[in-house]
């Protein structure tokens, strides 16, 4: 009976959109770094933690007002407890487990065993409880139990909780984790030296020679203070034998300290580019409509500079570390990664954030590879590839790449214009490359102009030369050269005008 109810309830929940939405919201808030409101939640939690630690410090010398104590006892504690429970809740889906077990049981035509169900669920949630951060969370709740004074110090565990909310701290720990082996080796070595030196000193001076050394603990304490090169001087050896021991462990101590420093420094050096990438990913997490430039060679650099002027959101990807560094130095967000693999695009957010990918490496095959890679991930992204080979260009177009640009052909066309019409070439060049103030631009037809006829715009009066109109119809956008004066304007029309920058800007404002 209970089992039946449970199963039906599980199905109800798995079918409920509202439940999914609520759970999704809490998941985003607690775990999803890209969720914009998570930042505010993190700030709030850090504030709560700091206030709790602050109260602990104040309490040492002065009595705390009642309301502050209540705040600490009830408010902070309930926040922590609910956070802990919510985290446990979003950690996994119980209803899915119930359904899975139920369907498994149906398949084997056996009744669903309740103890087994609880076992599975408990085991799953237990695996959450035993994660290090969950343990810290739990310990941080304990100080609320006021009967045991010593638990108060565990408030400091709340400070550890901050690791969860401050990303820079956790990335520091993450880096150290990568050097686990070296650090453990070093720690073992240090422990070994402390152990040996402590025992030696105890043997030499423990028998009343040194008034400061009473127990073995004193000797170990002395050894650690000495080997770490801190050297308080509250305990110091008095016999020649003890001093020899001290000299030896000071020497090893210097070695160990420099070893430790070098481990940490080198691990940071190795991870620096990764840290930078994390930073880039966090920044773009809030952006959409991103343009990804793959390859930062001559062409990549130029395109990036051109797009920068238009204030587009850019990310530069280059497989070459030096090129990625250069892009970074020039102020672009850059990632050193292989763009032929899907991982990097997935990290940026291939489904929702990327608008356009430009494949601009100097290698045709590489560009083709990247283009296909992106298209296979999401066909909605516009992909532009630069290639030199006509055949590869045709293949890419066939594969659905939106635009294939052949730099050699475009340049050859410019060259051909020069051969026939050198004066026209100068005009083309300065218009196309925007070398002078004169520029060609598009002007969208605003609501006020819809329905009017072309002559009513009086482009000549605005010191503009009207070349034509680009209109979107079933076949896509088509350029209509020199349309008639009675051309009726539609909302999707774009006027192509040539003129001085200020005249174009003025006209654009008027056309709105």
């Amino acid at each position, binding site marked *: 009976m209970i089992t039946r109810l449970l199963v039906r309830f599980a199905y109800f929940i798995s079918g409920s959109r509202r439940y999914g939405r609520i759970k999704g919201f809490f998941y985003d808030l607690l775990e999803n770094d890209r969720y914009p409101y998570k930042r505010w939640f993190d700030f709030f939690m850090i504030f709560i933690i700091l206030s709790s630690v602050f109260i602990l410090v104040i309490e040492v010398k002065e009595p705390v007002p009642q309301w502050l104590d209540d705040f600490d006892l009830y408010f902070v504690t309930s926040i922590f407890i609910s956070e802990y429970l919510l985290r446990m809740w979003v950690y996994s889906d119980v209803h899915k487990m119930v359904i899975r077990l139920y369907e498994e049981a149906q398949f084997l035509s056996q009744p669903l065993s309740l103890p087994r169900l609880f076992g599975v669920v408990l085991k799953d949630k237990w695996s959450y409880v035993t994660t290090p951060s969950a343990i810290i969370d739990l310990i941080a709740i304990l100080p609320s139990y006021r009967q045991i004074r010593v638990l108060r110090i565990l408030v400091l565990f709340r400070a550890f909780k901050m690791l969860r909310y401050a990303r820079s701290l956790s990335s520091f720990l993450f880096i150290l984790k990568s050097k686990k082996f070296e650090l453990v080796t070093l720690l073992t070595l240090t422990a070994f030296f402390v152990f040996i030196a402590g025992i030696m000193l105890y043997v030499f001076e423990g028998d009343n020679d040194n008034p400061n050394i009473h127990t073995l603990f004193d000797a170990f304490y002395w050894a650690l203070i000495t080997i770490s090169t801190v050297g308080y001087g509250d305990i110091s050896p008095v016999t020649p034998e003890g001093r020899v021991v001290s000299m030896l462990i000071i020497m090893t101590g210097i070695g160990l300290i420099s070893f430790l420093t070098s481990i940490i420094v080198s691990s940071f050096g190795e991870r620096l580019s990764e840290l930078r990438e994390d930073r880039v990913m966090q920044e773009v997490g809030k952006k959409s409509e991103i*343009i990804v430039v793959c390859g930062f060679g001559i062409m990549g650099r130029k*395109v990036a500079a051109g*797009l920068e002027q238009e204030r587009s959101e850019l990310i530069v990807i280059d497989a070459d570390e030096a090129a990625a560094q250069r892009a970074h130095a020039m102020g672009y967000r850059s990632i050193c990664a292989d763009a032929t693999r899907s991982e990097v695009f997935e990290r940026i957010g291939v489904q929702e954030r990327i608008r356009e990918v430009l494949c601009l490496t100097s290698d045709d095959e590489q560009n083709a590879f990247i283009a296909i890679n992106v298209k296979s991930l999401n066909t909605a992204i516009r992909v532009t590839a630069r290639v030199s080979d006509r055949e590869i260009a045709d293949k890419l177009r066939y594969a659905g790449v939106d635009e294939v640009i052949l*730099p050699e052909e*475009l340049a050859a066309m410019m060259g051909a214009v*020069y051969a026939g019409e050198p004066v026209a070439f100068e005009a083309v060049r300065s218009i196309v490359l925007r070398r002078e103030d004169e520029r060609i631009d598009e002007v969208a037809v605003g609501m006020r102009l819809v329905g009017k006829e072309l002559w009513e715009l009086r482009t000549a009066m605005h010191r503009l030369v009207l070349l034509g109109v*680009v209109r979107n119809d079933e076949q896509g956008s088509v350029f209509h050269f020199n349309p008639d004066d009675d051309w009726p304007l539609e909302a999707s029309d774009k006027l192509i005008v040539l003129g001085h920058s200020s005249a174009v800007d003025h006209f654009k404002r008027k056309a709105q």
Partner: protein
Amino acid sequence: MMERKQAIVLFGYGKFGRAMYSRLKHDGFGIRVATMLEQNHTDAMDDGVTDVRRFNPKHNDSIRALGIDPGRHLLYCAMDHTANNLFLVLSLRELYHDATIVALSNSEENTRKLRFAGADTVINIYDASVEQMVNALTRPAVREALNTIIYDRNDLKIAEIVIEPASCFDGKRVGEIDFRSKGVVVIAIIDKELGEELIYLSKGVDHKLDAGDTLVVVGRLKELEALKKRCETA
């Protein structure tokens, strides 16, 4: 008045030279291809290039043997390596002081060097593509228009028209002539009275046309031909 140079000597038949050849051929120029590498020579033969020769850019005699007439030929240096192009431009300039030399470069830096070496015009391979790409992202309609006017092989093109003495436009003002109804749009002019500089019509000055002035116009082939005829005859 600008002399028409209908014959072209194209140096190099690599990636760029090949594209250049196909475009120029399409536009109806007579082309002589000169290649340095055996491979490119074979490629050219395979592509059906009739007038193809091999040469060594380091020997002046080898260049002279190509039979270049600086008055008639337009020289295109389109080898794949900028270093080769630079050296070729130097040699050509030394041999033919009056020749018109067009060179290809792949960066602003090399453009400067090639100009210094004596090229009359330097075309950066990437410039046009970069602009097209940026346009595609920020001004798609402009890109569409430029594609139609300049890059696509259709009958819409940009051309220059020289006003001949005693033609029907001689002495008239630009504002008086209704070019648009003739199917062409005038975008710029070289007004001899004001010098050799190209002036955009959008500046708003109403120029008086005289013999020797050059108009830069956009139009369809048929209308351009018709207009040319009117400018060249009385």
